[in-house]
């Protein structure tokens, strides 16, 4: 780099630029200069080339686009001297990525460097491959890199790079390493004495083992050996000792690799590994030096994971817990956080439960830590360690904490408290107490599910009802209570208020007045509940209390005209019902018991956990499918579902198990509830998701549970039969008829696709454009559109792309040419695939006869000669049409105009008649004048006489039939009517034209009149 004056001048120029604009000008100037130099026929000297390529790199680093000169950069790789080669490698790895074609040119040169003798070049090449090597590199270079790695003649420096380079190649293309041959070599590599090479090799091993642990089982004892070697601090050179810890990186990697093996069978290996782990556990302590702490803790926590993974003896586990207990009492927040987090992980190993309990008070103290992440971990841990024995304490603690917790945590906190209270309630009245307290303390953060659940419990347990009612009554005495509290107490008092009737202050009218006090303060969704409660109170008031009745009726009356439909309906219905005596009693009888089912709260907690900050454990589990978490047997803690959800159970696997034809589906949560019964009952209060919304949760790793029914709904159907099970939006026939009269609009729509159409018509040519819009978020594949043209139309549809990307629209033009008049309709056979769903539709294309008409307004002088020239059938046809939908004359005129048959006003002296004209275009007939006359009967609008004439018999007939169809059928109506109504038509035509009919010809009469 030294001595390149041009480069340093350029850089100092750039640095001297006053502003961005000046810099850009300078860069553009330089780029122009470089382009000129690269383009020159004269061969550049290596020095110049090197200089310009450095400049390019500098410009690239400044953020400007450098999209040329890659060729020069790549060619520098093959330069013989180090400075040129170096810049070639550096610039190539900065400017290119693995998908660039240019890299293919470089492969051979890079290979030459790798197999060459020059160590420096080998290192440069390996670095490049490690940085950007893609699939191509993996295929052609992997064997050479492997050779370098295992060769004994190379220096450790090269072998280190080779190991990392191989790791990269393996990640890009797992086939790069042949499992059979390589396992032995890997084992040999782990015998390496040089710690640097060993560390790189272990990185490679971790990747290999995560992919296929069986093949590399021979490496297991070697890893243990490495750990032993490090733990005993044998043969560790000074430079690999970090704050007295022998190569912590290697230790962590070796232990990480060990976690990928399911278990260790060999007892002696196991024993020696446990010795090492024991040593690590014992030997780690919190010290002053941050770096030492970090290193030793990294090793320690990896060891803890390994201990958990290996399912060690109880003694060792409790030793771990004891160690963690020490950690959570330390002042340093990072260490405390790690301690809490790891304790939560330990919880999954069931038998440490009791040991952890010893630290309960310490954990509760952590709940008051100033650091929110620590508080969260403590909350998680408390939630996880809770069981019947300590539930009371913990829930109380949580309730106390609730009033001081910050807002972001309160919802989660209240939800967790509610769940714990439900799961471990020693008696139900305690549960009700807790929940009411909860609502009282953190009403804003109590989701509806919580109070729904309380209501379910109370309804299902008769003994609880009076207690709950009296508790609710107590809370109502408070001056300011939360709205949720109003809801609960209103509901409970409405149902069970009568059970308290004998207590003082609890008569129906008293209850009413105390509840009614709250009415002005509540929001709309609560009012319906209150109204129901009033009605129930009224019903329970025995004997009838006219005073109360009057008051309640007044309330109902007041809400009869409420703007909210739900309130209005309830008010009106209750009012009417309350006058009905016996029926009133029936309708408002006590609520039936709810079916037992999984708590919606627990379901919700799972979702919350999923969306809430993902704990490190879960992240780890997602990044690498370590068996550590999956294998550990998640025995339900005290018979409740595990607090921490097991990852890796994806909905797909659930679906697969269900779709097996028999049996298996029955063991999957038979309760599978409809979203929420209670919320159904509560009508508008149903904030819980509707079925449609629930299905969006399918992707959440919800395990089994409430979503099973949705999953099985789609999974149980065999793939092949899933055609046309999408719901079409709108009526296809209606859309077609609308498009017959318009030139653009929607032809077809379902939840995934929308087909719009836009048409232009000129003479007998037409140009339609189909707009295929993918509405879904995944691509539609196998899209096919075929046109089935009728004989009279020539249609050319340009090919439709096979795939429509998500949220994209493709256009597909369709050329239409009309050969002769006909009313037949072209059909578009359209199909596509979305995932496994195949959807097909046959759609009529709105290229109907009237599209080839051109409006034409004729004057009297033009009209009559033409009209007279058409002598009679088959050029001029007349028919009396019955069953016409009644239309006023102007409306009919509009209808005619809408299909481009122009009404010529004032031509016919009779105001009840319409005279119309138009031009028809087709290939055979050319432009053809068409005339029509409609005579209506003002007395009976359902019948009319129609005369249509043109220079072509087929055209006359087709046009007449078309107009008839339009007049009989509501254009928006169902198409099914058409054949029925059109049926008499051929008969009418079949009649031989009689002279009488000729005499009746209104045209002739008209002409006579004039």
């Amino acid at each position, binding site marked *: 780099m030294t001595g390149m004056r041009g480069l340093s001048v350029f850089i100092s120029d750039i640095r001297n630029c*006053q502003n961005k604009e000046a810099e850009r000008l*300078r860069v553009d100037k330089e780029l*122009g200069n470089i382009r000129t130099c690269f383009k020159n026929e004269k061969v550049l000297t290596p020095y110049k080339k090197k200089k310009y390529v450095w400049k390019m790199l500098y410009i690239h680093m400044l953020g400007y*686009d450098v*999209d*040329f*000169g890659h060729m020069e950069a790549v060619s520098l790789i093959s330069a013989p001297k180090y400075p040129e080669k170096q810049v070639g490698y550096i610039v190539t790895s900065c400017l*290119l990525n693995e998908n660039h074609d240019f890299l293919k040119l470089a492969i051979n040169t890079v290979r030459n460097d790798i197999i060459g003798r020059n160590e420096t070049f080998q290192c440069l090449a390996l670095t490049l491959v490690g940085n950007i090597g893609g699939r191509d590199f993996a295929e052609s270079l992997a064997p050479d890199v492997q050779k370098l790695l295992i060769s004994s003649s190379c220096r450790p420096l090269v072998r280190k790079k080779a190991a990392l380079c191989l790791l990269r190649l393996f990640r890009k293309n797992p086939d790069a390493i042949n499992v059979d041959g390589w396992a032995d070599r890997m084992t040999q590599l782990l015998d390496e004495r040089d710690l640097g090479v060993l560390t790189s090799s272990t990185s490679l091993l971790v990747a290999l083992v995560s992919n296929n642990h069986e093949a590399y089982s021979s490496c297991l004892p070697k890893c243990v050996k490495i750990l032993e070697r490090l733990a005993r601090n044998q043969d560790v050179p000074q430079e690999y000792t970090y704050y007295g810890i022998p190569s912590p990186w290697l230790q962590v990697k070796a232990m990480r690799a060990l976690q990928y093996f399911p278990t260790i069978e060999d007892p002696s290996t196991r024993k020696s590994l446990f010795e090492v782990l024991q040593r690590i556990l014992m030997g780690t302590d919190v010290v002053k030096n941050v770096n030492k702490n970090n290193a030793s803790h990294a090793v320690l926590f990896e060891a803890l994971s390994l201990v958990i993974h290996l399912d060690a003896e109880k003694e060792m586990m409790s030793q771990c817990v004891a160690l963690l207990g020490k950690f959570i009492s330390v002042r340093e927040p990072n260490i405390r956080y790690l301690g809490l987090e790891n304790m939560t992980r330990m919880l999954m190993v069931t038998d440490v439960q009791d040991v952890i309990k010893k630290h309960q008070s310490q954990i509760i103290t952590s709940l008051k830590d100033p650091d929110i992440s620590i508080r969260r971990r403590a909350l998680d841990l408390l939630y996880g360690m809770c069981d019947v024995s300590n539930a009371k304490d913990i829930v109380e603690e949580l309730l106390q904490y609730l009033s001081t917790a910050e807002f972001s945590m309160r919802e989660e906190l209240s939800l967790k408290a509610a769940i714990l209270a439900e799961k471990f309630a020693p008696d139900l009245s305690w549960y009700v107490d807790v929940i009411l307290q909860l609502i009282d303390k953190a009403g804003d953060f109590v989701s509806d599910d919580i109070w729904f659940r309380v209501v379910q419990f109370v309804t299902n347990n008769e003994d609880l009802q009076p207690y709950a009612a009296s508790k609710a009554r107590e809370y109502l005495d408070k001056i300011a209570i939360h709205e949720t509290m109003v809801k609960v107490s209103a509901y409970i008092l409405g149902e069970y208020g009568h059970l308290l009737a004998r207590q003082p202050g609890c008569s129906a009218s008293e209850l009413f007045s105390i509840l009614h006090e709250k009415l002005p303060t509540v929001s709309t969704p609560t009012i319906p509940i209150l109204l129901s409660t009033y009605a129930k109170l009224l019903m329970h008031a025995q004997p009838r209390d006219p005073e109360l009745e009057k008051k309640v009726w007044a309330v109902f009356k007041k809400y009869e005209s409420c703007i909210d439909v739900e309130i209005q309906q309830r008010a009106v219905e209750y009012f009417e019902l309350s006058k009905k005596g016996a029926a009133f009693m029936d309708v408002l009888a006590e609520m039936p018991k709810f079916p037992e089912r999984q708590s919606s709260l627990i379901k919700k907690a799972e979702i919350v956990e999923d969306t809430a900050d993902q704990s490190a454990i879960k992240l780890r589990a997602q990044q690498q499918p370590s068996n550590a978490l999956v294998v550990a047997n998640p025995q339900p803690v005290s018979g409740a579902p595990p607090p921490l959800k097991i990852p890796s159970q994806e909905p797909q696997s659930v679906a697969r198990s269900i779709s097996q034809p028999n049996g298996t589906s029955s063991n999957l949560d038979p309760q599978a509830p409809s979203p929420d019964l209670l919320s159904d009952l509560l009508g508008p209060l149903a904030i819980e998701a509707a079925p449609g919304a629930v299905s969006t949760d399918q992707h959440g790793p919800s395990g089994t549970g409430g979503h099973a029914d949705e999953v099985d709904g789609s999974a149980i159907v065999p793939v092949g039969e899933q055609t046309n099970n999408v719901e079409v939006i709108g009526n296809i026939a209606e859309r077609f008829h609308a498009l017959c009269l318009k030139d653009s609009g929607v032809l077809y729509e379902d939840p995934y696709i929308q087909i719009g159409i836009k048409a232009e018509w000129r003479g007998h040519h037409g140009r339609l454009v189909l707009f295929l819009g993918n509405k879904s978020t995944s691509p539609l594949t196998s899209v096919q559109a075929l046109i089935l043209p009728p004989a009279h139309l020539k249609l050319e549809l340009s090919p439709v792309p096979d795939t429509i990307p998500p949220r994209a629209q493709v256009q597909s033009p369709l050329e239409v040419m009309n050969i002769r008049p006909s009313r037949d309709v072209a059909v578009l056979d359209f199909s596509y695939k979305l995932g496994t769903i195949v959807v097909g539709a046959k759609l009529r294309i709105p290229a109907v006869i009237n599209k080839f008409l051109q409006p034409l307004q004729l004057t009297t002088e033009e009209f009559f000669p033409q009209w007279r020239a058409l002598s009679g059938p088959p050029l001029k046809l007349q028919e009396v049409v019955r069953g016409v939908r009644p239309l006023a004359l102007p409306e009919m005129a509009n209808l005619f105009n809408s299909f481009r048959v122009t009404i010529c006003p004032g031509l016919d002296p009779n105001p009840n008649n319409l005279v119309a004209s138009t031009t028809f275009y087709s290939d055979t007939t050319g432009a053809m004048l068409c005339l029509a006359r409609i005579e209506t009967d003002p007395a009976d609008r359902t019948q009319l006489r129609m005369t249509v004439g043109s220079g072509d018999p087929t055209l006359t007939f087709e046009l007449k039939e078309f107009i008839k169809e339009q007049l009989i059928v509501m254009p928006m109506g169902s198409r099914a009517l058409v054949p029925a109504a059109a049926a008499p038509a051929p008969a009418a035509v079949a009649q031989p034209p009689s002279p009488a009919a000729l005499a009746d010809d209104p045209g002739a009469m008209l002409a006579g009149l004039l």
Partner: protein
Amino acid sequence: MPVAASAIYFLNLRGDVLINRTYRDDVGGNMVDAFRTHIMQTKELGNCPVRQIGGCSFVYMRISNVYIVIVVSSNANVACGFKFVVEAVALFKSYFGGAFDEDAIKNNFVLIYELLDEIMDFGYPQNLSPEILKLYITQEGVRSPFSSKPKDNKPVPNATLQVTGAVGWRREGLSYKKNEVFLDIVESVNLLMSSKGNVLRCDVTGKVLMKCFLSGMPDLKLGLNDKIGLEKESEMKSRPAKSGKTIELDDVTFHQCVNLTRFNSEKTVSFVPPDGEFELMKYRITEGVNLPFRVLPTIKELGRTRMEVNVKVKSVFGAKMFALGVVVKIPVPKQTAKTNFQVTTGRAKYNPSIDCLVWKIRKFPGQTESTLSAEIELISTMGEKKSWTRPPIQMEFQVPMFTASGLRVRFLKVWEKSGYNTVEWVRYITKAGSYEIRC
């Protein structure tokens, strides 16, 4: 009256505040930081002269190497703000002679503060006329060495009377040995032409500049060959209008000295001029524009790496006239690597920082033509092939004694009580505005 500014800042190109003045309390002192971070340091700077950040609007313009930023928080009159800035800059220039740039500001802090105090009051613009202000802000600016010497100070009559009087723009008792009037008509032609030679958009904006050195209180009357004036004249004199070209002027605006009542009734431009230099009127013309140059470009892309450019420029003004400083900028793709030119006149070179071939011709006589033909080699690129957008060819020029609109001064009459003789000088010049030809 609308508020024009709550504060005004003068920044250099790096965004340092050179000088500022706050007129109202409704904007914070740190607003200029918002301008610096949200506007100056983004690419927005050149795009939009008015930006809203938070509750404040920033109205800014760049004059040489200074950004002038007006900050307002209320619903201000933006046009008034811009006009204020333009006038203020003209005022500063007249105080410190010629240049207005960073150095000039640094040299004249005190004067600028004094002026800023005077020209705006609580956000409302005040008198910005240099002639008046010089009556009572008598401090001299530090002049740049190249500007002309100031004239010697004259005794100041009653300034208040002067400002509030009927002819606020002219002092009484001026006297010159030689009474002279200079009149310049400066036009700039804007053109957008399609590659086939169709005129897509064409207009001329012109102004009439005057420099008067007249004694006493003279009354001037200017006659142009514009349509309304001529018609009115022929009507008044009840004789048919003279044949010859008449020009239809759009959007005429006058200096405040022009007597508008007389213009409305008689359609004549009569005025008592301020002393020295001023802009008498501005106008615009959209029809009957005489284009001074025709450009015939042919640009062929031969494959991916070669291009051929052929540009012919024809001057269509009178053969006796000539254009000066003709520059034709022919855009080329960004990946241009090598260029080969052949020109009949002038010089051409490739300028990579604006991606143009720049062809300069110092003197271009009328009724002649010259051509440039160039072969361009492009370098192949890695990026996806973006087709070149073919920006329009741009042209710059000046043609003295030519008006694109055809406007001519028919007469300029001067009356004064003493009845002295005056010498009138008239000059015409046409410049290129945005003169673009698509290729």
